[in-house]
């Protein structure tokens, strides 16, 4: 139950940050593929760098253990990514 409350709060902040970065708008998503507005990449990469340095630091301190990392199966990941890109450029998800 506590886990669900945490999920709700984290989700709210997740949605909030997406909204404020403008990633809920069609033009932001498509323009990253046209190289005219790099907000999506800036947002994603900042999140990645912050989270990965934080997580690895916390693991180094022994405060957390990592959950199951997403499985690597090369063909599936690449083919999935290729199809995903089509949908992303179409809808602006």
């Amino acid at each position: 139950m506590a886990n669900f409350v945490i999920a709700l709060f984290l989700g709210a902040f997740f949605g909030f940050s997406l909204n404020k970065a403008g990633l809920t708008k069609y033009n932001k998503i498509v323009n990253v593929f046209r190289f005219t507005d790099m907000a999506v990449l800036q947002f994603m990469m900042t999140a990645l760098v912050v989270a990965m340095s934080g997580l690895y630091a916390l693991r180094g301190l022994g405060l957390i253990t990592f959950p199951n990392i997403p499985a690597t199966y090369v063909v599936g990941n690449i083919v999935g990514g290729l199809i995903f890109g089509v949908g992303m450029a179409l809808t602006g998800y």
Partner: protein
Amino acid sequence: MKFILNYIRKDTWSPYVAGILLGVVGILAVWLSDSLLGASGAFENIAGMIGKAVSPKLFDNVYFNFIMPPGFTYGVMLLIGVFFGGMIGAATSGTLKWGKKDSANSDEQWKRIFGPQTWKRWVLAFVGAIILEYAAGIAGGCTSGLAISGGMLLAPAAFLFIAGMFASGILTALIIYRERY
């Protein structure tokens, strides 16, 4: 303090600031509840729940039994949070609109490329969303669940996915926009 309040009211933040916020959320998700920020999985959980109720035979396969078991999961709760978080974000910047017909299709760039009809936007969003969800099922996650959450654990799958996503995204945008690219 006033500066912070004014910043919250801004419509669009610097993507770096918003990215830092998401990064912190990603850390907290692992720290507090030992899970990742997956969004697309929740749709499959719900779809599985509906499918099992409507036609249990059709949904009695490996995917819905073991890979994406139906049920009210952590991801579903997260998704509800995302929905309200997005609304709060829009409300704080004063762009939240209720039930206005044209607000479903207010994107100038979209209208320039695809025309002004709102139904077109609904159809394309629906078709595109099917493609997205199917692809997320193949790859094992979406932008948030695989690319960002996997990337922050340095999972190779995430970077393969990002490479594929951008390769075909750029190609699709080229095809749609052609000389307007």
